């Protein structure tokens, strides 16, 4: 798994093995194992595995992935009922953890190891080796120059040796007026190459360890709300296989405030340019209270666990009372944003309502606008003209069945839409003094429900933040691995391995000097180097004479 044209031990072995496989049959089990191993660790196999890896990664970008966007994946499954079972079998929703994808990269890793080991052995031997002696006929090398001088061969070779700084140099002779120098450099190229390939393994190990020992969780917290770092407080919690919930850091925090600026300019209309949340946190129940501001690109790190601000939205503050004015429900309810203008949808469940349980389902518009095409919608993401429009259901919320329910979905199996004058009853609410519509009627902040079901009040708008909390104990390992890989890569691409030979022999009263070079990388062009050296030597010789 590296590029060096003249040394391909694995390929050569592969050829041999194949020849042998063709002639000697049947193979003994040991032979067969050896053959398989060589086959697997050959460069051809590695290349094919690389292509399979690239190809195998493609479906994960086309089909929504459970691990990336579980909501999108679920939606996709709903829309494609006939394909879904086939895709499930093929692991299309979990490509990167599917057996076949794992098989590709595990084989690639085996191939990698099978390549690194022998190459390391070869390299260690080559590290200690002396540069190979000058070939008998230097003129047969692709790059060579010849010139003559009056200087003695040992003088020529002495200068050549000085000029070859940075090379490992061996001097032979001069004996009987004939001598040569063999020089080699660029030993670190192969070291870089090996470092790169080992580092790839380090990165994978780092990732594997991180995903085994770490965890990732998401939680929505309304401003003013609290969060304690225990698994039950998370909305979604994905621990690594070896992560124990008991090892969650015992921190807690309160979201004190949330700031956001929306651009009102024509060009960037509605773009959130700046948003940040204030946190007051304790790293342990008895620890001192500290404060921090988090924003995109600026997470908070508490004892190795990081808290990221990744989104935000609205939580209308609602109070539901019975006909006598007793509070049945009160507090902010999270509505999830649906578009860039923060048209949001959500449900309110009031299990304590009497005479029947109540459920509300509808939309929230931070800045209400209306058009005949879209109906009510939001025209700006800031809460300039908030409106809550919901349908009302009465009956059994189904919370006592023991089946866990999403807080964002209303199970209306045992509920009926509340009606008034034969039509489904909608509540439209605006906080404070309400909104006066164009026809002069008022959208109030409190609405009385029909059939003695009580009242509902929209007290005001709170905001919530979407936080991601995660811990990845081995991320440093993976990062260090990538950086080492890059260093190794640079070495393997840019260190130029080459051999240079200089020979000098007496011929007819003069010294014939030959300079030749051999490039041992895949892309080198030695003509310049050999020209330089020959030119330098020739000049030096004539200078000395003068």
């Amino acid at each position: 798994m590296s590029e060096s044209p003249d040394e391909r031990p694995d390929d050569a072995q592969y050829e041999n093995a194949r020849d042998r496989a063709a002639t000697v049959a049947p193979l003994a089990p040991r032979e067969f194992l050896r053959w398989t191993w060589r086959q697997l660790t050959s460069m051809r196999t590695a290349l094919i595995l690389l292509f399979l890896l690239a190809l195998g990664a493609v479906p994960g970008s086309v089909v929504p992935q459970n691990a990336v966007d579980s909501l999108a994946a679920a939606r996709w499954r709903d829309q494609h009922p006939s394909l879904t079972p086939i895709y499930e079998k093929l692991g299309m929703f979990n490509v990167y953890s599917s057996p076949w994808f794992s098989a590709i990269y595990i084989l690639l890793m085996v191939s990698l190891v099978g390549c690194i080991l022998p190459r390391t052995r070869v390299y260690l031997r080559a590290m200690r080796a002396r540069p190979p002696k000058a070939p008998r006929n230097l003129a047969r090398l692709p790059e060579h120059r010849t010139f003559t001088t009056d200087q003695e061969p040992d003088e020529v070779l002495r200068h050549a040796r000085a000029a070859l700084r940075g090379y490992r140099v061996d001097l032979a002779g001069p004996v009987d007026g004939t001598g040569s120098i063999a020089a080699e450099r660029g030993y670190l190229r192969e070291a870089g190459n090996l470092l790169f390939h080992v580092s790839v393994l380090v990165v994978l190990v780092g990732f594997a360890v991180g995903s085994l020992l770490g965890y990732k969780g998401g939680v929505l917290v309304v401003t003013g709300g609290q969060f304690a770092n225990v698994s039950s407080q998370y909305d979604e919690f994905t621990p690594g296989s070896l992560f124990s919930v008991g090892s969650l850091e015992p921190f807690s925090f309160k979201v004190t405030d949330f700031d956001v600026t929306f651009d009102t300019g024509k060009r960037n209309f509605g773009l959130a340019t700046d948003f940040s949340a204030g946190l007051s946190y304790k790293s342990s129940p008895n620890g001192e209270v500290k404060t921090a501001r988090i924003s995109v690109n600026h997470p908070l790190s508490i004892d190795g666990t990081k808290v990221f601000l990744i989104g935000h939205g609205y939580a209308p503050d609602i109070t539901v009372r019975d006909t006598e004015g007793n509070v049945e429900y009160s507090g902010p309810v999270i509505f999830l944003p649906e578009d860039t203008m923060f048209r949001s949808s959500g449900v309110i469940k009031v299990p304590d309502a009497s005479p029947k349980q109540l459920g509300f389902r509808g939309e929230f518009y931070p800045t209400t606008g209306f058009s005949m095409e879209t109906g009510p919608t939001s025209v700006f993401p800031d809460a300039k003209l908030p409106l809550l429009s919901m349908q009302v259901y009465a009956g059994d919320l189904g919370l006592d069945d023991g089946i866990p329910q999403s807080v964002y979905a209303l199970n209306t199996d045992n509920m009926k839409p509340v009606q008034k004058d034969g039509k489904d009853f909608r509540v439209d609410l605006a906080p404070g003094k309400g909104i006066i519509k164009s026809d002069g009627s008022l959208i109030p902040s409190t609405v009385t429900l029909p059939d003695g079901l009580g009242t509902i009040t929209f007290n005001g708008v709170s905001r919530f933040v979407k936080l991601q909390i995660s811990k990845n104990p081995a991320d440093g390992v993976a990062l260090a691995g990538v950086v080492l890989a890059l260093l190794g890569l640079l070495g393997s691409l840019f260190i130029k391995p080459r051999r240079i030979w200089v020979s000098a022999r007496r011929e007819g009263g003069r010294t014939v000097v030959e300079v030749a070079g051999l490039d041992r990388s895949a892309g080198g062009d030695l003509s310049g180097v050999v020209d330089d050296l020959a030119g330098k030597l020739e000049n030096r010789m004539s200078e000395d004479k003068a």
Partner: protein
Amino acid sequence: MSHAQFEVLSNQAVAICGAFYFIALLAHLAEWAAGRNVPLDADAAADAAAVSGTASAGTASAGSADTLVAVQESTEKMERFARWGLVATGVAAGVHLVAVVARGLAADPIRVPWGNMYEFTLTASLVVTIGYLALYRRFKLAWLSPVVTGFLLVVLMLDALLLYDPVFKLRDALQSPWLVIHVIAAIIATGAFTLGGMASVLYLIKERWLRNQGDPDRTPRRVGYLDRVPGLVQLDRFSYRVHAFAFPIWTFAALIAGPIWAEAAWGRYWGWDPKEVWAFITWVVYAAYLHARATAGWKGRAAAIIAIIGLLTLWFNFVGINFFFGSGSQHSYA
């Protein structure tokens, strides 16, 4: 100057540098047209003729004194057109740079002009020009001139027609020093891979052309463009050098700077977002290219094909992901 004026300046500069690339392309086409009468080894032919004193110096086309004069005229014409082409490309590069800088100054507050696809393409195409001009002498890139100038013209046209976006404020996820580091690395690598990919395409064309050359003794009367495209070894070497330059930069952009930034902005290093998937695919394909170049049976043609596949995945990642996956990608802005 106000921000709006800078935006106008940038747009006008794009139009002007497009015009200069067009002039350069015409000059280079004229160069190669003039070259049809110049034998491959024109200098040697002229020298030989001068030494022997006669015009019949054993070269293919220099038959008489008249043709020798004609050859000399064509050679001069060729050199002149080549010079004009280079000058026009140089001017275009300068104006191109103005377009990029003005684009950055047009935003309020001022920022690096790498906030969307239009700006990314504008800058990456500048990298192609700069890379081509910087390597022109060292690698004797005259043969690449018509390809590069034609390519730049087309890309700038597509950029202005299809990808244009008015200057926008950066969304919050992009407000990070990593924008500069991650994106410039991606831009440089994209530009360099593109340049290397051109050489790989020419490699395939020339290789096919050489195979179809039929009778080797038949001396072509006219010397076409492909005659002057360097041999397969040099093409392969140039392509490799440029790819070897781009690959570590891509590694840095996609696998180091990208994950670090993603962790800060989104809370995860690597999330298999479509853009990340395709960056990974591109990386794997180029890694395969580097390996293939050193493997018997994969050298040359196969390696060139792999390099071109790599380039296609790179471009697909840039353009395709945004069009096909749009909002499905967290990278949907770039």
